[in-house]
């Protein structure tokens, strides 16, 4: 996902910008999204790279994730989550399953419950 933004106003005397964010593939023009007032003291202003990184990391990611979560889910995309240890591909055929992954590498352990 590529996060895009548009600075719609800059107030040097307040060191503040007003910014709109969205994901590049959004069907809605960025101008239709609401703007957020951001204090530049909270951003890294020493170079363009640091500015982009701090703006997106501190604000853009959270705002765009929230925009995406607000979109309705197509009825055909309503998913189920699976948690059973047993993988049975035949049971999964034809079903819409929620994909999960570990953002910080953390892999599953195989444990076996027994009776003593």
């Amino acid at each position, binding site marked *: 996902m590529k996060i895009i933004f548009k600075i719609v106003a800059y107030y040097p005397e307040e060191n503040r910008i007003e910014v709109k964010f969205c994901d590049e593939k959004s069907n809605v023009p960025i101008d239709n999204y609401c703007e957020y007032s951001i204090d530049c003291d909270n951003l890294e202003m020493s170079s363009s790279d640091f500015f982009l990184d701090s703006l997106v990391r501190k604000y853009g990611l959270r705002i765009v994730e929230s925009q995406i979560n607000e979109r309705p889910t197509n009825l055909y995309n309503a998913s189920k989550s699976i948690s059973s240890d047993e993988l049975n591909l035949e049971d999964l055929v034809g079903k819409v399953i929620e994909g999960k992954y570990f953002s910080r590498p953390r892999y*599953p*352990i195989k444990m076996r*419950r027994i009776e003593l």
Partner: protein
Amino acid sequence: MKYTRFFKKCEDFSICSELGDSDCIVAEHTNERRTLYQIVVYGSGKVARPFESEFKVLDSSDNNFVDLKEYLYDHTIFHSTEPFHMYGFNTSEKYVDWDGRLVTESFTGDDKSWLICFDGSPVVNGKVLHKLDYAKLEQKLYNVEINDGLIGVFTKK
């Protein structure tokens, strides 16, 4: 430098596992810090809250089962001093406490306890356990031949 984490949510608790080289530095955020006990299969390291001089030693010889409740819901830093393999026993429900201990001989269980085999092939009630076998206990006698095994018993308070 290698460092790998594993995780498994079980019924009332979760188990994490860390495997890595010597001289790894691993920071854990307060949101993730739910480890009550650390079990060391091999290797060694130290764990502490950031910027504090106090730390706890984890090693497979004298400190292979360490109570880490004082670091619960705090930021922590781990530094390995040898290649290591460790497990963490974690509470699933915040603020629910557990007692834990290593088992080396026969004992009487109860229905609030779980037994976990962390290493080796111990025998319990005639059954050979394998690494990461676990069982809910009952109010009865459990005959243990520990052999080369590393078994923990954890009781929900």
